[in-house]
């Protein structure tokens, strides 16, 4: 079982849970985009209550979810392999282009050394793979104190944030 990090702390008893396409949906279920597309009439009541989450595979790009993302209180972006970097662009586009303000959760092959990058592109929940060292993981969020680029929290690059030279 992956360990969930939010606000730089481990969270117990998370109410959100992944539901397979052949299993019944209940409150705080995280479902696939395919399921939403076929069953959204039945699932709308969960969505309207803010109690439905979306799971995106790394193959799914913004064109596929930009019409529906508002229905979900949580969007989980899957990293099938930690080297698959598509989720970074997906999260950033959700935040910056679509202005999504719900939770964006990294799921799948989530390792310590990705966390710093992930938080910068808009992830705010992290399902850390269960073999990862917890203390090291929490330290990773502060690896760099003043990076060059802007990010989702502060879009200004270093050259706009600080008076240099």
């Amino acid at each position, binding site marked *: 079982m992956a360990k969930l990090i939010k606000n730089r702390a481990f969270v117990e008893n998370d109410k959100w849970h992944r539901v397979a396409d052949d299993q019944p949906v209940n409150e705080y279920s995280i479902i696939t985009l395919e399921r939403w597309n076929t069953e959204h009439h039945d699932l709308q009541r969960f969505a309207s209550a803010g109690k439905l989450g979306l799971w995106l595979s790394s193959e799914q790009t913004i064109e596929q979810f930009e019409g529906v993302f508002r229905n979900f209180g949580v969007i989980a972006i899957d990293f099938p392999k930690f080297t698959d970097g598509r989720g970074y662009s997906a999260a950033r586009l959700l935040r910056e282009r679509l202005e999504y303000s719900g939770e964006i959760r990294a799921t799948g092959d989530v390792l310590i050394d990705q966390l710093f990058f992930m938080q910068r592109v808009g992830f705010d929940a992290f399902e850390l793979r269960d073999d990862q060292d917890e203390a090291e993981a929490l330290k990773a969020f502060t690896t760099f104190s003043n990076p060059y*680029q802007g990010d989702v929290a502060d879009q200004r690059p270093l050259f706009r944030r600080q008076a240099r030279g």
Partner: protein
Amino acid sequence: MYQYDEYDQQILNERVAQFRGQMQRFLDGKISNEEFLPLRLQNGIYIQRYAPMLRVAIPYGALNATQMRTLARISRDYDKGYAHFSTRQNIQFNWPQLEECPEILAELAAVQMHAVQTSGACIRNTTTDEYAGVIAEEIVDPRPYCEIIRQWSTFHPEFAFLPRKFKIAVNAVPDADRAATMVHDIGIHIVRNEAGDVGYRVIVGGGLGRTPIIGEVIREFLPEEDLLTYLDAIIRVYNQFGRRDNKYKARIKILVKALGIERMAELVEAEWDRIRNSEGKLTAAELDRVKQHFVDPAYADLADEPAELVAARTENAAFARWLQRNVRKHKKAGYAVVTLTLKQKGTPPGDVTAEQMDSIATLADEYSFGLIRSTHQQNLVLADVEQRQLFALWQQAKALGLATPTLGLLTDMICCPGGDFCSLANAKSIPVAQDIQVRFDDLDYLHDLGEIDLNISGCMNACGHHHVGNIGVLGVDKKGEEFYQVSLGGSSGSDASLGKILGPSFAREQMPNVIAKILDFYVAKRIDGETFLEAYRRIGHDPFKEAVYGKAD
């Protein structure tokens, strides 16, 4: 050159600390080999045939004497007393111990150097013209733009896990290209528009490797302050849509081919349109700040062709030959641009010893404001030498084995480390280079042949850029034996072209004779001082083929 401020230094120090921690976790068995791989690659560490290799970045080829001495010391303390300059202006150590790499990186950080993103599926070191800032022909000095790209690409949070490596090169000279920009993932040509404003022509989708492709123009003119947002747009499209199922089809060139340049441009422009006026847009203040790091050094007021130079040239034919070949006109009267060639007979192209590195640092201090540049052709440049001191410099460089007067000639080869070091190689490349250097060591003959790019790669990954050599040599493996395939007609210049394979491959010992046949044919057929490439383009491929293989029946 660019000097770090407190922010640059802090970022680098934090990187050293991060990698120290990662290495410790790896050594403690908390990170698997597979998961440590991208972490070490993004810190420049490969595991090679015999040992790890550490590739240290020389951002756009600029380094100073202190940094050169540090590199020399590292090669002595952690390696076997030599190092290798690569075609992307970086330097490689071939024998460090894996567990000592964090310490090496700490020593580098103390002199504002690093191995950040010199490998791995991320944005690599940005390269440019080794003559940047000292020649009259350039539109503007490209180095500030390279430094701006360096900072933007360093630990870019969105692009740390791209489908594949990503290389950017910048050129600011019309009609010449010493950075091979047409065969990079992104090539940036600094240009002026009709209004006289500085901006960029952007090329995308070039590359070598298994599928060599010349890049295509994606935008004819991009305003100066839009550089980073446009790069963000291109790489964001690539990160989303580049193939990840096959590493040989994962470079952006394959995406551009699949979509077509028009569709690629549509996607990029649409993305750019949304972000072009975001906070990521460059500011005049930032452009100005970085440009201030590249202002001219305190040049003396001198005249061209001082008497000392004229006299030495008249009296010493060897000096005159070196001047003609390895010394280039400077934008400032009384100065010259000197290339120190790392192509000594008997030494792998691009290799330098620790002693040579220390001596080069001394030469830089003595003759060129303490600054050195590395080049795509695997040489070094002292860019600001007073003409009246050229003779003194030549004498010292010659004694150090750094004045072989063959810049741009046949034996000024590009050559990858090949099967002697690299675990990817199918064949050795260095012995081929050495055989050719030994066979063609007559300077009169080499000068008579004129400019020829001979590029050698030990496998189809093409680190030796064989596709764009006027003569390209590719090592291939045939049933466990090393053979060499020859191609002709490649060029990495502004008229970039890909070489065409001549025919069946050859055994290593045949190679000097094969090259000799090609050259003999060229010499016999050239007219009016044509270069090899010009003659090849005029005469065509088949006559050269016939000259090597005999007439087809």
